[in-house]
């Protein structure tokens, strides 16, 4: 049967408004609330609970869950289902995310809305399956071949796992782009209180369907009905008879593999439809930054110990603040640049050997010192460790 979002049924399946659950389950809740009609996934620690949650709940709201044969297939299936007009999702971790890169690029090239939750762990290769890390912050941005941009969000709490999953769907539908929730094993397996939003407490964005005359419709160009670089969506089965290809295509969708201009026009549009909105997309949280002289710039799980250190530091009279990046890509260039002009030093704690520290360095003022605080091996920085790093910079 064809899925249709049924808010009452979804709420009934989710249960109580206030619950104490894991980050991964909150991701599944967020997907359900957003109206996911198809989930294709493959088991992998520490992301399996998302698929398990979907397997339990999705059939009960008349959506389809399929455990695919691998992550290549999962990514393929959610793109196929998206062209069938559904909101679609998968969840994985490092090794699976690597396998998804091929069709992640296909989704970008074909402007297919879909959501990937990447519950990050470390690598290379199988690494530490059961432990969290922030291993893929660059892969999500650069992992597929060719020129691309990413939209990626980083939750730091279980509530954010739920809220940001909904936000991922909204952005994905709005920009017709695969959007990635870059959570991690720490947040994914953390249990916290969440409040499930009621129907009137959520804003849901749906892709704009193609409506204009079939013989006038141009599928791969600026919208013909709005001032937007995102074309209206001609879902399969609605009579538009659209040809979708990962080859470089012209505005009509036909292959134009040997045409420089067509390629340049296409790629420029699918990148700038997102980067034009960098300021609108920018989403950061500022903590104690008004008079700060030194600041943490953090995201995801790393923000948790860093925030404790800000509190400790302030108690001891240190002018420390924190900027938490909630949407990592497209990168909040202006915010970082402004911060770097205000503080003397930026410390970037990460559960990797330095990934987001690179764009931070690139967009920071040359006069600001950038310190990469690295920790790998599946453990978060302890507040004490971070405090020592802070003290060394005073």
């Amino acid at each position, binding site marked *: 049967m064809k899925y249709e979002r049924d808010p009452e049924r979804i709420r009934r399946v989710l249960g109580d408004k206030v619950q104490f659950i894991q980050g991964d389950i909150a991701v599944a809740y967020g997907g359900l609330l957003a109206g996911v009609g198809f989930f294709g996934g493959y088991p992998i620690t520490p992301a399996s609970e998302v698929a398990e949650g979907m397997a339990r709940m999705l059939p*009960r709201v008349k959506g389809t869950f399929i455990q695919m044969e691998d992550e290549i297939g999962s990514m393929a299936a959610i*793109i196929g289902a998206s062209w*069938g007009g559904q909101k679609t999702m998968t969840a994985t971790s490092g090794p699976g995310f690597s396998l998804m890169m091929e069709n992640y690029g296909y989704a970008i090239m074909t402007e297919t809305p879909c959501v990937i939750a990447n519950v990050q762990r470390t690598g290379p290769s199988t690494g530490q399956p059961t432990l969290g890390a922030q291993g893929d912050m660059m892969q999500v941005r650069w992992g597929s071949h060719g020129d691309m941009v990413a939209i990626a969000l980083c939750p730091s709490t279980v509530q954010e796992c739920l809220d940001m999953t909904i936000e991922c769907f909204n952005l994905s539908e709005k920009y017709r782009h695969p959007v990635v929730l870059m959570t991690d094993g720490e947040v994914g397996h953390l249990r916290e209180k969440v409040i499930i939003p009621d129907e009137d407490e959520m804003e849901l964005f749906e892709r704009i369907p193609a409506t204009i005359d079939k013989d006038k419709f141009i599928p791969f160009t600026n919208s013909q009905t709005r001032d937007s670089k995102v074309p209206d969506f001609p879902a399969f089965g609605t009579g538009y008879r659209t040809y*979708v290809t990962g080859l470089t295509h012209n505005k009509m969708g036909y292959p134009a593999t040997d045409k420089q201009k067509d390629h340049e026009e296409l790629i420029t549009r699918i990148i700038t439809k997102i980067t034009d909105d960098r300021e609108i997309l920018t989403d950061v949280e500022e903590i104690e930054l008004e008079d700060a002289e030194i600041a943490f710039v953090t995201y995801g799980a790393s923000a948790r110990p860093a925030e404790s250190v800000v509190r400790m530091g302030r108690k001891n009279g240190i002018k420390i603040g924190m900027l938490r990046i909630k949407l990592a890509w497209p990168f909040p260039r202006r915010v970082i640049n402004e911060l770097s002009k205000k503080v003397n030093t930026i410390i970037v704690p990460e559960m990797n050997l330095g990934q987001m520290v690179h764009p931070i360095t690139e967009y920071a003022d040359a006069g600001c010192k950038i310190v990469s605080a690295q920790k790998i091996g599946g453990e978060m920085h302890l507040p004490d460790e971070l405090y020592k790093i802070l003290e060394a910079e005073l």
Partner: protein
Amino acid sequence: MKEMMNANELRKKYLVEDMMPTIFCNGCGHGNALDYVFWAMEELELDLDKVAFTSGIGCSSRIPGYINADGLHTTHGRALAFSTGLKAARPDMDVIVFTGDGDCTGIGGNHFIHAARRNIDITVILLNNFIYGMTGGQQAPTAPIGSIATTSPYGNIEQAFNICELAKALGAAYVARWPVSHPYQPIKSIKEGIQKEGFALIELMSPCPTAYGRRNKLGNIEKLWQWYDDNTILMEEYDKIMDYGTEEEKEAIKSMIQIGVFQDEEKPGFFEAYDELVDRLIEIDDKKAQGGK
């Protein structure tokens, strides 16, 4: 009775003029498969707004681009996984997959195995030309022993896939193999495949003069096409000779490729089974909700 169209009228109705000419070489069998699908759709009176064509990458996978319907030209080998999602989202649509021997059984082998095993309700038209045509003639998993490809220049030493046997073993609802050199049986099988509940595989043996025939000294286009008549045998015929024939007769057909409908079963497709599961859960949930009121 419906009046039959001729080939030109059919093309007018189903072909995307803007995409002409096709990429196919002179003497390629893939174009015939395209025509056969037009015939099948015409005879079934399919609503083109409710049919989607998907494909992977290869010469064979270019076919959906020429058909005036929704088309999803995906990544190499992955068409069946894309189609699984598409069919889940739009179970009311017919999903027809065009794929090559390399696409479907080389890089896409795993997706093929699982789509067949799940009995996903799609129709797969696999154009087997024993070679990677699009990339210039590298060895395919279907290459006959001894055949020459750019990556097996001294002759292939690997066993070839018997795709239909594989699909049969996986429990696919419908499995058939025909050469494209005669239209009637392929059209009939494509029709049966589309109408079939569950996974239908139609393997069409398609000559590739450019990357296979030439290198394997199978002669000009005409001779290459003749090869398919000379080297295939109806499954029923094969069985009869093997059971009752003389030793010489058996020897003569031993290495021939069997053609025919190998499997044709009525059983629920994946989405029928899934719908039943959903109905069962919804009934329980609804009962609970009413009881709680």
